[in-house]
């Protein structure tokens, strides 16, 4: 009986450790979209840190048969705190790998390789952490007062582990259910767009890896305190794969899924094999375990890629019916999109527009802007000035460089030459997310909604300066950001209502029709509180009736002080809403004026009809 109880205590500790590790990895992968194939090294850093902090100096202990650094004999809880710190610090160098715009699979491979590299280094450089033999006789907390071999101790240890895991669960949940969590998920779904809405990708990824690393480190400390031994054999790169399998099975993007996966895969799975009678070939069982993990991954990703407990949808609108999306229809339905009471919307209030004197000053301009790709000059010496409070059009034949110019203005594309000025400042070298924070916001031509976020979440994610949209803001909890978030949601709902889409508030953005998604994009850009709105073919694929209604609203916005630069092909839109209109052809500015003036300009006519 008591043997059973000891086993139970062990299961509890292992379960807690695995759950904690899976929660951390899920946070990185399922919520923030970072495929940390090297995750195990963070847990391992924590285990080693806890060991070398709690053990006595190497030379003096036990006859000096182990070599390792430090050896500070610190009492609990310091080794565990140190372990968390170690895990967090280890994350910092990897931000360079992940923070840049590197393909997800390449970054993942880099992390995998780093795990292998560190394992080899620790194995081979013995003075560091005792090489392949690992560090043993790691003291358990309070072992001088209380026998760690005793049943009571072990159950208490297990209880502490579980409590810590529960705390981690709530901590991570606090982050992911906050506006900051929304920004992380947006980054996961479409990082370029998140960047264009002002999110600092590098910072978000740093925070994610550090937080995940700290939790992983803590889990390592808990483990090593219990089993008293930690060696390279325990943290080969394949251990990360087991945790990934756990998350895939349990459900990525869902904290409960992470815990469920931890219980099913690393725990139940490994333990089940204890009860299989020994077979002829002793190598068979662990090998079969690996085979089963591999099969689990393949089968789940094929049949149930979202896991047993998929990511939950966040219902923010308060309307129980709002999640249903009627069957997607053809393009004609866009004509039937009934906009709501758009004209009644108080844009100044909703979009928090500043009271600006509509003084027609130049708010955005370029000087000799140029872009070349491999010797082909796409935009050449473009000098334009955009006046505040006007809707300026940017037209030209295909390949004229309109979209490229807009991308350079927004910072999505770096320029090859020339300068860009915004509100009197040279912003040529300012990164795109900072430009968005300064009020220079763009939309995209192609579908750019955050697919796994609801329509409402898409909209609210764009609102700048949210007190919950930072790590510390999130940590302070709902009490800190809750009311502001509720107001933001109300504002978003009002705009949704104005555009006639409030019934889709809680639908996944990816399920809407083309015209509807276009509207969501425009609304999202508006909610980003731009001073200058850069629209990249906003009416493409939109029914003319709807396009004109949108145009009316843009005019209202401009009257209220917003500046709009719009790249468009539909010339009737230019007629109706844009003044002035700038014509680009073959990468150069050809002419500028009202559409009426341009129509009389033979050069322009030639460019459009002949070239």
């Amino acid at each position, binding site marked *: 009986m008591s043997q059973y109880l000891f086993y139970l205590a062990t299961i509890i500790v292992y379960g807690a450790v695995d759950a904690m590790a899976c929660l951390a990895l899920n946070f990185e992968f399922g919520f923030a979209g970072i495929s940390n194939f090297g995750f195990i090294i963070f847990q391992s850093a924590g285990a080693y840190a806890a060991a070398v902090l709690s053990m006595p100096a190497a030379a003096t202990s036990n006859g000096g048969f182990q070599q390792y650094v430090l050896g500070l004999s610190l009492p609990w809880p310091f080794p565990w705190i140190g372990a968390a710190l170690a895990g967090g610090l280890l994350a910092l160098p990897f931000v360079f790998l992940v923070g840049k715009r590197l393909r997800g699979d390449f970054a993942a491979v880099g992390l995998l390789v780093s795990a292998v590299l560190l394992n080899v280094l620790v194995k081979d450089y013995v003075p560091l952490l005792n090489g392949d033999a690992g560090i043993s006789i790691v003291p358990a907390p309070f072992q001088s007062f209380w026998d760690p071999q005793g049943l009571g101790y072990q159950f208490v240890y297990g209880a502490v582990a579980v409590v810590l895991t529960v705390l981690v669960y709530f901590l991570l949940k606090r982050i992911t259910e906050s506006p900051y969590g929304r920004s992380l998920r947006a980054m996961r779904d479409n990082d370029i767009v998140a960047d264009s809405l002002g999110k600092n990708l590098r910072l978000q990824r740093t925070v994610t890896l550090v937080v995940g690393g700290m939790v992983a480190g803590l889990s390592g400390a808990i483990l090593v305190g219990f089993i008293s031994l930690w060696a390279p054999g325990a943290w080969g790169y394949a251990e990360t794969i087991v945790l990934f399998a756990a998350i895939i099975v349990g459900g990525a993007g869902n904290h409960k899924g992470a815990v469920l996966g931890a219980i099913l895969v690393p725990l139940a799975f490994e333990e089940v094999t204890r009860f299989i009678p020994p077979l002829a070939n002793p190598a068979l069982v662990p090998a079969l375990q690996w085979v089963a993990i591999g099969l689990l991954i393949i089968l789940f990703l094929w049949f149930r890629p979202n896991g047993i407990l998929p990511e939950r949808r966040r219902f923010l609108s308060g309307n129980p019916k709002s999640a249903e999306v009627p069957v997607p229809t053809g393009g004609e339905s866009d004509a039937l999109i009934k906009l709501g009471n758009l004209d009644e919307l108080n844009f100044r209030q909703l979009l928090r527009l500043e009271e600006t004197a509509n003084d027609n000053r130049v708010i955005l301009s370029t000087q000799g802007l140029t872009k070349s790709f491999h010797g082909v000059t796409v935009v050449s010496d473009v000098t334009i000035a955009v006046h505040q409070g006007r809707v300026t059009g940017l037209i030209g034949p295909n390949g004229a460089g309109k979209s490229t110019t807009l991308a350079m203005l927004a910072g999505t594309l770096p320029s090859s030459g020339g300068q860009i000025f915004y509100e009197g400042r040279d912003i040529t070298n300012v990164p795109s997310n900072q430009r968005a924070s300064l009020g220079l916001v763009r939309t995209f031509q192609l579908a750019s909604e955050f697919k796994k976020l609801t329509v409402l979440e898409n909209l609210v994610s764009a609102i700048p300066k949210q007190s919950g949209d930072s790590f510390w803001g999130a940590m302070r909890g709902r009490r800190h950001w809750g009311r502001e978030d509720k107001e933001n949601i109300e504002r978003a709902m009002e705009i949704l209502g104005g555009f006639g889409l409030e019934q889709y508030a809680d639908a996944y953005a990816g399920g809407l029709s083309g015209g509807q998604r276009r509207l969501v994009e425009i609304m999202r850009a508006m909610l980003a509180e731009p001073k200058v709105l850069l629209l990249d073919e906003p009416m493409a694929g939109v029914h003319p009736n709807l396009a004109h209604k949108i145009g009316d609203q843009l005019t209202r916005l401009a009257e209220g002080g917003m500046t709009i630069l719009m790249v468009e092909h539909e010339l*009737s839109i230019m007629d109706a809403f844009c003044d002035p209109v700038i014509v680009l052809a073959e990468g150069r500015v050809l002419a500028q004026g009202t559409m009426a003036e341009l129509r009389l300009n033979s050069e322009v006519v030639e460019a459009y009809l002949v070239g």
Partner: protein
Amino acid sequence: MSVELSKKGLVLTTVNLSAGYDGRAIVSEIAVEATPGKVVSIVGPNGSGKSTLLKSLVGVVQVLEGKVTVGDQDITNLPPEEIAKIGVGYVPQIDDVFPPLSVKENLEIGGYLLNRREIPERIEAVLEVFPKLRNMMTRKAGKLSGGERKMLAMGRVLMLSPSVLVLDEPTANLAPMVATQLLEEYVRGFADHGSTVLLVEQRAKSALRISDWTYVLGGGRVVLSGAPKELEQNPLFVESFLGGGTRH
């Protein structure tokens, strides 16, 4: 230009064609016809669906309704490889060459379906049409200038002696003089030698100059069609491009 460059043209027709992505139609109820020896152009403002229409003829975009026939063969929704075999040569607007392959290799891929022995002859024939390419046979296609690249793109298609030539905005990104030469000398030339030529162009005036028949697309449908001379006189024609001032 060698008369062997293209086989006798075939008639390309569409009947009540609707095409688009993900089940959503971008063009609807399109009926066009292109016959041998003639240049048929499709013009229209951007967003009117010209490119999508062309892509649906060559298997790149899905046809949702209606039919496409070449000669007496129904080619609706056939995969691009099959359509090439039937003799329809397609020059896309972008990504029109294989950049890491040399000019010669690009042409050789153009002749993929040919018998080994025929390839050198065909390359010779293509080089007679585009003599400038002769000095660049070993240069990588990615390093060519815009005009040279387009010539190579068209040369690749000519390798198969296509019965129908489908060109998507061949003059996009080309300097005006090069564009004019491309259209007047080459595109017109192909038709004059018996091919069926269907092209989409943004430079409507230039297209009209070399066309025998023109369709004007607007909002995914054919809004006007006729012989260039008639269209030029038609006030609706200019309006459909520059947008009528009163159209709301």
